[in-house]
């Protein structure tokens, strides 16, 4: 009888341990979800503005060479106005997929505004960046030709064209605007 009781208590302890494990897993899961929500754009799954900047700061501190890219969708507002926000959201999600497909896992992608995206392409010079970004621009134009949506893209190289994130972003933004002003749907690095 004593043997049965001891085994029973051990089995109850197992049940308690299992429940603790479940609780611990649940806590980890919740923590992960909370962290994800705090650092990601929930529509596209890309980094949000703060998280992108934070990740990029590590590269800058390590003096890692990269190309910072500013991408803005052309005629996106018209899609929202004419086809509704659901269609607009679809285009944003698809744009994020195109960027992911054309970049490597170690590169960074973020959504920092309505139709504004940023990318950081690691260990990349102007020629390499131009090659990748042309492919992205081409894919976006091809996919969204029915909506007349294209991408204006500007890119700058760290550390050649700027020393900090703000400076680099400003310069990439200026290049992107230059593209917008000169006909849209192009890459300028």
């Amino acid at each position, binding site marked *: 009888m004593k043997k*049965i009781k001891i085994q*029973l*208590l051990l*089995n109850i302890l197992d049940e308690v341990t299992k429940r603790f494990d479940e609780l611990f897993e649940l806590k980890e899961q919740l923590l992960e979800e909370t962290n994800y929500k705090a650092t990601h754009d929930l529509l596209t799954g890309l980094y949000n503005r703060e998280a992108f900047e934070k990740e990029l700061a590590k590269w800058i501190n390590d003096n890692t060479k990269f190309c910072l890219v500013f991408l803005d969708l052309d005629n996106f507002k018209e899609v929202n106005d004419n086809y509704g926000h659901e269609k607009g959201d679809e285009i944003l999600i698809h744009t994020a997929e195109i960027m992911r497909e054309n970049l490597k896992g170690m590169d960074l992608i973020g959504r920092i505004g309505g139709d504004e995206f940023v990318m950081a392409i690691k260990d990349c010079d102007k020629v390499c960046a131009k090659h990748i970004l042309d492919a992205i621009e081409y894919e976006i134009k091809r996919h969204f030709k029915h909506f007349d949506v294209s991408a204006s893209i500007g890119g700058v190289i760290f550390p050649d064209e700027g020393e900090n994130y703000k400076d680099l972003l400003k310069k990439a933004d200026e290049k992107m605007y230059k593209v917008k002003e000169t006909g849209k749907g192009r890459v300028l690095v």
Partner: protein
Amino acid sequence: MIARIYNSTQTILKFAIEDIFRQFKKDFFIDDYDFLIFGINSDYPYRDVNSTIKKILKTDKFVAFNAIDLFANADTLEGIVALFIKFERDGAIDTYYQDNFVSIKNCVNYLKSHKDALNIIISGVSNQVPTFLDRINKKIIDDDIFLIGGLSSGYLDREELVTYQYVDDKIIKNGFVIISFKNVEFQKGISLGYKPIGPIYNVNLSKDNRLYVAEYQDASLIAKNLLNGMDSQDITNLWYSPVVILDDKDGEVDVVRTFKSFKEGEYVEFFGPIPNTSKVKLSFATEDMLIESDKKEAIKIKNKLNEIELGLNFSCIARQFALGDKQNEETKLYSEIFNAPMFGFFTFGEIGMNKTFETFKFYNQTSLICGIKEK
């Protein structure tokens, strides 16, 4: 009130009743009786119970019932135990019985007319008992009626579980009898002793006594996991660790439920209902914890009543199993503390009041005790 208890373990029914009658006749303290209650092991031929008692004692002022083990003062025995009652003042006994759990009208009327009495219920084993009690509860909620008792216990006889009651020349096979002590003072206690331990299981799907899904998992796993590593997979191994159903208002233990069986991948079954959406928890007690709880309740009753003329104990068979080597200590302890004759039996489920003494409840694995004296 004079209460005297006699017993016999003679294997022939006639000889056992004669033995008891002989003891009564020899007793210097009692020469007459107003009522008799017999507890009879279900191995005796049930068809002969009424006629044998009637023939030998030449009376029909009795109720008998089946029980595997019976309490006779400080002893626990298999056989026949008889309680002889002689009132000295205005004490009296009424009885009520019915052979079904369908109609509640007459039973409610009877109970309402016995508000001040100590009503003792002895029922047959049926899954309908908890529902029947719930239906009565709805009709008596503010009536201050007191009821205590248990389900007769017995063995299987050709697929028939012999847990009958015998009254008024009848054999009640699927019903109950109520014995009402009038003009008596009484105090009652519910001894539990099990300490809730382990995780809480939220019941997601249950029906009657079967629990199907708890914590969104197959509930049979609870029993299976608890039996893990044991030489025998006998479900009685889990009688040391019954589940407690927690009160949905205060989170305290409401009732205990004893494991009955489990079917892997389907359900785990208990000796009482598990309400849907309730919260249950495992529990555990050592023999000493059970005895300590008995002692506490018995002392409470003794202090309130001071002098006790008769003690009653309705104790679950699974509790007795869990008491192991200390099985005899429970009734011995009650007998010592009450300093009075003790009568009772091993039940297949107890019937008592809820915590606030407003409604009737079906219990498992408890010892319901009561001290009585004539007013």
